[in-house]
């Protein structure tokens, strides 16, 4: 009670210094100009930030499609670069596609079992110092620059087989190092989503713990794990730097992961780009000056489509299996 007169006085002083206070209509319809201007300006700034981010996305997709479509053809996908030189209007990426599929596939073959089992270890058995260490070092591995992973794979094989080794398997190891933390993280997340009641129900039936993990936990989380694996593959399929230092470049098809250099799509793009424009003599009829860059764009289109398809597919799988995980 004692406080109220003071407040009334204060109100009178603050609201109406000299003249009588503004009417209710004025109070409700006359917003502070400065504040409203700031609010509008910030709305423009924030919307503008989004628009700015769309510039690279739109321009990149547009130019990759426009420039890539020029040279992309069934022929381009079906032949290698063997015997192609100078500004010849020939050559394709068959060898690079074969190489990418082999190296990435081999990497997944190593990374998926290790990653999934390590995640099982963390979720189902993990309490001790090993689990804590694995959690910590998976975080560290997530941050390894891709080129360092390439150097590691190179160093590993150099010690085993002598210096200067270039073969698909080395690249696969480098990609596996990059894939494993992604697979562990996503699998771990999925396994933790499996309801506890489901585990208990299985154990109550007298099923041994490990069979419960395989038959109940892993099966329930299968959709999520597949999604995670596909996203991990999509991430490494575009890796260039580690393959540049481990697998090298070559012009013809090589299907042997353990023998000789291999071409891969990202490295092909880089290779063609770095060869640049071709100096053509005026009388050379079949010489295309921009052929290297044209090939780079076409290969980039193939790679982008591949990566986006993997992402899209992963999302579809996730959506398809999401209700199963919820049940």
């Amino acid at each position, binding site marked *: 009670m004692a406080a109220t007169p003071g407040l009334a006085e204060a109100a009178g002083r603050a609201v109406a210094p000299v003249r009588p206070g503004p009417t209710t209509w004025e109070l409700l319809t006359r917003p502070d100009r400065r504040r409203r201007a700031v609010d509008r300006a910030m709305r423009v700034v924030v919307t503008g930030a989004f628009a700015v*981010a769309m510039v690279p996305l739109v321009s990149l997709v547009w130019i990759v499609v426009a420039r890539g479509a020029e040279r992309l053809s069934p022929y381009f996908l079906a032949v290698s670069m063997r015997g192609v030189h100078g500004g010849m209007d020939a050559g394709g990426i068959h060898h690079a596609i074969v190489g990418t599929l082999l190296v990435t596939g081999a990497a997944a073959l190593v990374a998926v079992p290790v990653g999934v089992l390590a995640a099982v270890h963390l979720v*189902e058995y993990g309490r001790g110092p*090993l689990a804590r260490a694995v959690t910590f070092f998976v975080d560290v591995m997530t941050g390894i620059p891709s080129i360092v992973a390439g150097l590691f794979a190179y160093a590993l094989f150099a010690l085993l087989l002598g210096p200067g080794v270039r073969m698909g398997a080395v690249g696969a190891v480098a990609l596996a190092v990059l894939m494993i933390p992604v697979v562990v993280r996503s699998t771990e997340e999925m396994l933790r989503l499996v309801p506890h009641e489901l585990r208990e129900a299985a154990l109550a039936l007298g099923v041994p713990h*490990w069979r419960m993990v395989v038959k109940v936990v892993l099966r329930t989380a299968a959709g999520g794990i597949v999604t995670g694996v596909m996203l991990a593959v999509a991430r490494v399929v575009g890796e*260039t730097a580690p393959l540049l*230092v481990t697998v090298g470049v070559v012009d013809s098809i090589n299907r042997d992961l353990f023998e000789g250099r291999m071409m891969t799509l990202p490295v092909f793009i880089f290779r063609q780009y770095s060869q640049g424009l071709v100096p053509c003599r005026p009388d050379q009829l079949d010489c295309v000056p921009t052929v290297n860059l044209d090939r780079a764009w076409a290969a*980039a289109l193939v790679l982008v489509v591949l990566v986006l398809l993997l992402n899209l597919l992963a999302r579809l799988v996730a959506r398809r299996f999401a209700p199963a995980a919820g049940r």
Partner: protein
Amino acid sequence: MSAVAGRGAAQGVAGGATTTLRRTRRADLGGRAFRGLAVGSGALILAMLAAVAGFLLLEAAPALTASPAELAALSWMPDDGSLWRYVGPLAFGTVLAAVLALGLAVPVSVGIALFISHYAPRRLADVLGSLVDLLAAIPSVVYGLWGALWLAPRLQGPWAWLADHLGFVPLFAGPASTPPRVMATVGVVLAVMVLPIVTAVSREVFLATPRLHEEAALALGATRWEMVRMAVLPFGRSGVVSAAMLGLGRALGETMAVLMILGPGLTYSLALLQVGRHQTIAANVALQFPEANALGVSALIATGLVLFVITLAVNSAARWVVARRAVGGAR
């Protein structure tokens, strides 16, 4: 805990007929094998990481122990053959590129994250968010191609303008090189590449702002922006910091975009618009590695180790910030 439960269940069945008993023993064997596999995979990851550090050190050893005279024989080494004199400018270039990228990306990312979380219509927000995520899916070599062939020619004008009008600032010291295969262009491309990560993390923390605090601000007569400033930004600040650190870790290790755009050089120059001043560790390794001899490879691996240590430090710092936030949030 769950392992104990599993053993208990197995023992419970063991009291039955002999067939059950036999199956149980087999199951136990399977259980041990499975568990062994799981533990082994965890251990393998640790072994792998130790191997990364170990093998890199082993392979770098020849360069670390080589005499300056031997090193000086490498064409790209400084004349005095000092490995440290070689790594220094590379490390400087690496950090400069990453900091520049982050300086450009963080304000834009925060803006995008706010747009998606608090300005865009709810129904559109998810779609717009996945558009930004799409940027993260594009391979770095494609960014390199785009940066070098599409973006760089378009930045020539702006860079020349900066050099003409703000040339007194050391960062913009002219003349602006043409074609602009310069650090500033690299910074823009790297910024685009780290944008999705920083945006995704910031968006999550902004969306997690308690509704109570947003309503408190609005009920006091705050405009939308004032609500953001009073409730959303203070709440999300540390989240944005850790997002920025994650982006920094990403930018430090990026190879291809730098390799394909930058005209390299080994100086401690701040002039972002001049060609032939900077190079990053990662791009340098990719550039020199294919042609390097045994000692050269060893020296390059030594620089790779430096990069490894830098990113390790940045990522650990990011995690530390996140952990501190978790503790602070519990208060």
